[in-house]
């Protein structure tokens, strides 16, 4: 019996080491043009991943907030490529069934230029096919129209405009 218990404890502790429970991204503007900075932590919960943290230095209002396919933050965040989209679908809102995995919608920035983030998403993950680790978070200049704006790029980028800040998602 005690042998059995030891074995169980060993397995549990091993899983604990292997399974990633949280990840972090440090957001900044690699070009140094904007003063946007931020820190967002992604933590596993029963409702999927919960993103918490703050982003500062943004203009008040809504800004597109997405996970991009690549972790390369070169060339003013453009090297991060398109939205993380492993199933090759069109752009949408986080609550839509047809969306990119990386579509996290908008963050709503208050009058002082800071947003305290607390959003959850059931599609993004810290492991497997939807794993966001090693990819980039990008904060956009404009509002994400969630694919419903009828602009040329509404169904690809949500017409969210330029990239103000980005960072690579790392294991925490």
């Amino acid at each position, binding site marked *: 019996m005690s042998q059995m218990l030891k074995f169980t404890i060993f397995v549990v502790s091993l899983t604990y080491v292997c399974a990633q429970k949280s990840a972090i991204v440090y957001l900044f503007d690699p070009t140094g043009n904007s003063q946007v900075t931020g820190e967002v932590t992604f933590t596993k919960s029963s409702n999927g991943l919960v993103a918490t943290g703050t982003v500062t230095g943004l203009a008040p209002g809504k800004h597109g907030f997405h996970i991009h396919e690549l*972790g390369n933050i070169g060339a003013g965040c453009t090297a991060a490529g398109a939205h993380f989209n492993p199933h090759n679908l069109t752009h949408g809102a986080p609550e839509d069934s047809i969306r990119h995995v990386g579509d996290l919608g908008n963050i709503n920035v208050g009058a002082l230029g800071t947003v305290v983030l607390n959003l959850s998403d059931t599609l993004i993950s810290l492991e497997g096919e939807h794993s966001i680790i090693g990819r980039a978070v990008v904060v956009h200049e404009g509002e994400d129209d969630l694919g419903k704006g009828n602009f040329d790029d509404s169904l690809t980028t949500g017409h969210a405009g330029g990239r103000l800040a980005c960072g690579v998602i790392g*294991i925490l």
Partner: protein
Amino acid sequence: MSTTKIEFAVQMTCESCVDAVKKSVENVEGIKSVDVDLKTDSVVIDSNLSTLDLQKKLESTGRKVAVKGYAGSSAAVSILEAGDRSIQGVVRFVQVTPNVCIIDGTIDGLKAGPHQISIHECGDLSEGCNSVGNIYNSNNKSGRMYGNIDTVFAEKNGRAAFRLEDNVIKLSEVIGRSFVISDKTENNKNEKKTGLWYYC
């Protein structure tokens, strides 16, 4: 020695440019094959040489050369961004077979001498080199601490260029963690630089 295919973007305007480029990497030991495509400005070289060595050879033709990446294999990159501001570098990581990975990097701005390169457990750069945690130590049978890659040497000009074959580290286990280079000499322990491994 395992070979890897590296793709370069080389400015080429005519067939004679293609010949010049081919000539610059002809009869070089370690190069298995060279494919040049004039239309896309692409040069793919299959070799066991470091990215920097190949880039230098291509640049000897007087053309602008940029590294586009590793062709046809799973790869990751770490751009060293956090830590000591005077140090700059890029490290590439290619899993060539399930048991062999190539770690290929060029790092500038170092003090001449030995430097430790390692993989640290966390990918948290919020406090630069101070928040990346300890050297990554997963369960492994190799007898070495997993993330303890090797020692590399910086030349007098401050550059360390290396291409290592590693049988311990796996691509899937480094993504999202950080790469750290630190000075190994006693009097200069503070010189450190780090960056995150990401998909490319």
